[in-house]
């Protein structure tokens, strides 16, 4: 079985898990008292947000190793991770306003957290644009690696500037220093969803990576 096929099956498994998450979230998880059913979107929004940031960090790590080892596979992985990260950032930026409308009464607010996710999204777009704008493969990999490493270092700054701002956005309740303050059944659903998103990320990246490798081989063949 080729990598692309394995990736496809992993993605199918991830989508099945995601469907199961919906079933569990809608039917078997208690409704949150103040927010009502709208809070259900939490199980999609937060895992996607965590993977958006993690994907950027993985891009950065792959970039560091690329600059040392000069292995083209690492560059292909960074490319794949960046594209999947862009897709996840899009999920976050779509589900966020949908959740915000009933709870905050507005689709969008220039709140620190929303703005920082938006800028992470722009960072991804910039990364992909830079890849598209350099013709020579070697230079493209190096430039992308430099930007990827800078991007990885930017994530904590974006993350911490959120804490310094007074914000409408709820503070993270799972990824925080103390123990998670979420009731058990909700935490279980959330963890389940997080696993689903992890499988999805892996599946997407496997497929995209196989494509990037094929692209690199073809490019090398033409030169």
């Amino acid at each position, binding site marked *: 079985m080729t990598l692309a096929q394995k990736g496809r099956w992993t993605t199918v498994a991830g989508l099945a898990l995601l469907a199961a998450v919906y079933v569990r979230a809608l039917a078997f998880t208690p409704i949150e008292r103040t927010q009502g059913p709208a809070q259900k979107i939490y199980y999609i929004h937060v895992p996607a947000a965590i993977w958006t940031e993690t994907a950027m960090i993985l891009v950065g790590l792959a970039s560091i190793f690329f600059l040392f080892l000069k292995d083209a596979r690492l560059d292909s992985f960074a490319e794949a991770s960046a594209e999947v990260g862009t897709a996840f950032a899009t999920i976050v930026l779509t589900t966020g306003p949908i959740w915000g409308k009933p709870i905050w009464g507005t689709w969008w607010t220039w709140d620190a957290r929303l703005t920082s996710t938006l800028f992470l999204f722009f960072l991804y777009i910039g990364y992909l644009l830079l890849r598209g704008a350099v013709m020579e493969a070697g230079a493209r990999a190096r*430039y992308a690696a430099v930007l990827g490493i800078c991007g990885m270092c930017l994530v904590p700054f974006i993350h911490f500037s959120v804490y*310094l701002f007074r914000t409408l956005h709820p503070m993270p309740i799972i990824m925080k220093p103390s123990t998670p303050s979420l009731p058990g059944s909700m935490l279980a659903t959330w963890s389940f969803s997080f696993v689903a998103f992890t499988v999805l990320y892996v599946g997407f990246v496997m497929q995209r990576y196989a494509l990037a490798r094929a692209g690199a081989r073809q490019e090398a063949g033409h030169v």
Partner: protein
Amino acid sequence: MVARKDLLLEFRTRTAILSALVFTALVLTVFEFGRDPTAVPTIDLAPSILWVTFTFAAMLALNRAFALELENQALEGLLVSPLSRTSLYWGKLIANLVFVAIVEAVGLPLFVLFFDVPVGHVLLPLVGVIALATVGFVAVGTLFSAMVIRTRFAELMLPVLLLPFLIPPLVGAVQVTGRLLEGRPVVEAAGWLKLLASYDIVFVTLSTLLFPHTVDE
């Protein structure tokens, strides 16, 4: 040495610095017409005006830093010279910082004049904040400008890549400037100052380490 060469070239021709200064003055003027003076008090808007102007002016300066070297393959000349990559980067960084500092030194009095914001009592801390925020984003900008000159749409690519990186210093600078102009104690903004300082340390180091990868084959 690189810094001296760049600055010397700049003072001989004076085109870039003059256009950047005119640009700064124009942006400040545009802001004046872009707000409703009866509805929004200047003091509320002042930090944003100041920082957006500085950011745009710096972007102009950075675009020019390596574009200069493209003519007559001057960059290749610098690269084969015995100069180390680190000194080349620092030379460019210092030249850019001086360039941006000149723009800011002219921009700040203009800003005070146009918007009638009293800064006399907080002048020193304000200059400190400006310096702290400028160093960080000029460091990243210098690194990126070395990359983008060899891409297509270089002039457009630099802002697209750089703006996400401008957010932490910009937000921090606006917050601290706002507190200073309102005459509140600096201690209130300690968190932001730490953020600005760590941003400078991280990105100056990082850019210095990464710069060789942007110019070497």
